[in-house]
């Protein structure tokens, strides 16, 4: 019953929370740059405005692709907050991203196509770490199910104590998933990048609004994953999760965009070193305790 309420809560509240987070993001970014910044509700104004604009479509399929993108993002969120299999969450999340890439390719615009290619590279860089995260949880809790992990965490078995390396690796990859600088290769929330708007260049009005809404759902889902590491005391968990997002904003404002080669290499290195060593340590501990 609680999981049903959580699912309903996610579907209804995630856009609200995601929108507020993105509004706060813009204010904090502005303050970091010595500006005053827009009101918190600006993200909602933007999306409502986009629905008022003309929908310029270059391919009659791109609307459907974007709707699929949104649906699969929501679906993976439902799996996560419904307490389902963490691996399924990661796969559904990937499928959602694939639809975004398809939508971008369908426009045939050079900017969009290069943006889509870079999005694929970003997925390639981030996906191994997301999978390792799921595997790490399995090694500690003996289950991929979020509900089991959550209950064990509430019961006092703190995931962060067993998976510090995996957590750091996930934080590294989060920057790629949020498409924040230095990993805002495929598209950026800030103007003036070399690909104009990359992935989202050809989407106008309501189409862009769908991407924005999906992005809110995405943000809440990813922050949910961060929260899972600290799920023992809700207040502390929420504070740490928000702090992690603040760090993402700080990194966004202090780093220049890097080349895709460096992104791929560093992300895989982080996965291998932080995630891999953590899993190895878990494995060794399990062996020792079994032997003893």
């Amino acid at each position, binding site marked *: 019953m609680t999981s049903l309420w959580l699912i309903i809560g996610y579907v209804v509240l995630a856009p609200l929370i995601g929108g507020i987070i993105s509004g706060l993001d813009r204010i904090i970014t502005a303050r970091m740059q010595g500006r005053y910044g*827009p*009101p918190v509700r600006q993200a909602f104004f933007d999306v409502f405005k986009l629905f008022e604009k003309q929908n310029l479509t270059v391919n009659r399929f791109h609307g459907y692709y974007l709707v699929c993108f949104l649906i699969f993002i929501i679906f993976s969120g439902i799996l996560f907050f419904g307490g389902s299999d963490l691996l399924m969450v990661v796969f559904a999340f990937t499928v959602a991203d694939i639809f975004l890439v398809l939508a971008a390719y369908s426009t045939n615009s050079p900017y969009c196509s290069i943006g889509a290619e870079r999005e694929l590279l970003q997925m390639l860089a981030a996906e191994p770490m997301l999978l390792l995260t799921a595997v790490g949880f399995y090694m500690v809790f003996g289950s991929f199910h979020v509900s089991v992990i959550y209950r064990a965490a509430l019961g006092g078995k703190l995931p962060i104590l067993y998976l510090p390396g995996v957590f750091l690796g996930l934080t590294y990859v989060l920057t790629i998933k949020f498409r924040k600088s230095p990993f805002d290769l495929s598209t950026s929330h800030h103007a003036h990048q070399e690909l104009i708007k990359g992935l989202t260049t050809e989407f106008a009005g309501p189409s862009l609004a769908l991407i924005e809404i999906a992005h809110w759902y995405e943000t809440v889902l990813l922050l949910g994953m961060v929260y899972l590491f600290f799920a023992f005391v809700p207040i502390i968990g929420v504070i740490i999760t928000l702090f992690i997002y603040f760090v993402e904003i700080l990194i966004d404002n202090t780093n220049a965009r890097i080349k895709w080669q460096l992104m791929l290499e560093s992300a895989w290195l982080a996965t291998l070193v932080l995630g891999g060593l953590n899993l190895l340590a878990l494995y060794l501990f399990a062996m020792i305790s079994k032997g003893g």
Partner: protein
Amino acid sequence: MAYIKKSPWIIHYDGSSCNGCDIEVLACLMPKYDIERFGAVNMGNPKHADIFLITGQINSQNREVVKTIYDQIGDPKVVVAIGACAIGGGVFRDCYNTLGGVDKVIPVDLYVPGCAAKPEAIIDGVVQAVGLLEEKKKRGVVTHKEGTGDETRKLPPVPDLNLEQE
């Protein structure tokens, strides 16, 4: 309520000239004036924009560019010509390659005078443009129908320069 008032996204194009007005437009985004307070963001992508800020004069090379940008902006949209050059060619009006102001190529809604136009004047222009956007939204102004690609206005002919004769 029209949300377009709350979130006017801007595309800025500088058609050469001396760049003075261009710098002033960018100054509006900087900490001192910070037009993002009103939700205005410099987009760099015509398909996402609502307001087309254009500085500098129209010449035989950039007329196509300006026309293309205008056509790519979705309705409702507003064009603001900033500075003497964009209004009528300014000090460059007699140059061999200058065709004149922006309204030679696309319909202009607002003119912001000055050489260079002051940031305060530019912000005033943007604020008026926002009002106009809402009005256009209410009246349902459509400049081009979806998919038909119909022309709003034909480009003016390029004058025969006859440079070789000199």
